């Protein structure tokens, strides 16, 4: 008779277990999100991450082992990003009409994200090395990491700050828009994409397809803009008082 421990050892070595558990954890997160009446605070990503972190800790599993299974999910981020072109195309007329509002909101939103993040962190006494890693936090992770490397910050810290920013935006976006009584889904989606990249975009798609399309553009354009201006702006932001 095979011991349960033997089965566990066999399964925990391959990718199947952790891939399946990632899908189950997300399924639980998504079910809780729906059961709550789609409340933004019940964020399915946050719940799934919490469940998996507890499981990894309890089973003493390393992230490297977990990622062998989860990499198949992670890999799909690439083609999904490419797929954002489809809602852009189906909303083409609306996007053409919104070109100037988007351009203005992009510049103001991107600058506000960088300047206010560094200003608040400085007031809270965060040191200059860490401030550099904070500058690109509103940008999609691969670009943000590239920017931090160019600025001389810590890429691993930026990766953390980027994900936390995405989840924060996904949670606070809808309550802010509702409190301000903003009903224009172009503007709502675009602001989410600029301020909180892919995770904000994922949240925007849960709310409204138009919002999702505009969030995707906001994310893509902010990646480009921040990559171009962060190296110029960062020395002034981080310079001595």
């Amino acid at each position, binding site marked *: 008779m095979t011991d349960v421990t033997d089965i566990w050892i066999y399964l925990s070595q391959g990718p199947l277990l952790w891939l399946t558990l990632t899908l189950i954890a*997300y399924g639980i997160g*998504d079910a809780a999100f729906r059961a709550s009446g789609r409340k933004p605070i019940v964020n*399915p990503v*946050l719940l799934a*991450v919490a469940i*998996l*972190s507890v499981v990894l800790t309890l089973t003493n599993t390393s992230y490297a082992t*977990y990622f062998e299974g*989860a990499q198949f*999910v*992670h890999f799909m981020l690439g*083609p*999904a*990003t*490419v*797929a954002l*072109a*489809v809602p852009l*195309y189906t909303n*083409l007329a609306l996007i053409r*009409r919104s070109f*100037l*509002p988007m351009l*203005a*909101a992009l510049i*103001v*939103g*991107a600058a*506000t*994200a960088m300047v*206010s*993040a560094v200003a*608040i*962190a400085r007031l*809270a006494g965060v040191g200059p090395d*860490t401030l550099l890693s904070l500058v690109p*936090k*509103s940008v999609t992770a691969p*670009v943000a990491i590239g920017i931090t490397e160019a600025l001389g910050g810590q890429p*691993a*810290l930026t990766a*953390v*700050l980027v994900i*936390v920013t995405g989840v924060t935006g996904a949670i*606070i*976006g809808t309550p*802010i828009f509702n409190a*301000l009584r903003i009903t*224009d889904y*172009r*503007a*709502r989606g675009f*602001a989410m994409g600029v*301020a*909180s990249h892919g*995770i904000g975009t*994922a949240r925007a*798609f849960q709310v409204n397809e138009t919002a999702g399309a505009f969030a995707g553009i906001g994310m893509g354009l902010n990646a*480009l803009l921040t*990559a171009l201006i962060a190296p110029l702006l960062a020395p002034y932001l981080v310079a001595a008082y």
Partner: protein
Amino acid sequence: MIQHLTILLGFQLLGEAISRGAGLPLPGPVLGMALLFVALMAVPRLAAITTTAQGLLAHLSLLFVPAGVGVVGQLDRLGDDGLGLALAILGSTALAIIAAVYTFIGVARVLGR
């Protein structure tokens, strides 16, 4: 389905190759998105990928879970700066959302769009 995935992966590959080759500050998938957008306008028949694309995007959140789990293990990197960084992220994300949404609406209103 296979055909649609091939198109998406093909544009990602094209994006990665151009981005690397030309040393652009954009990741391959974001450039791939821009290229597919241009291709859709030139070849409307490509819009057949819509169903697959919508299926992927409906669960975009799921795809961030593995990276999120990685972040939990790195939280101690925040060290003594944890509270300051949390305040900075909360405050700046709220401000950026508010600034962007009002700018969008303001400019749209001035232009009558």
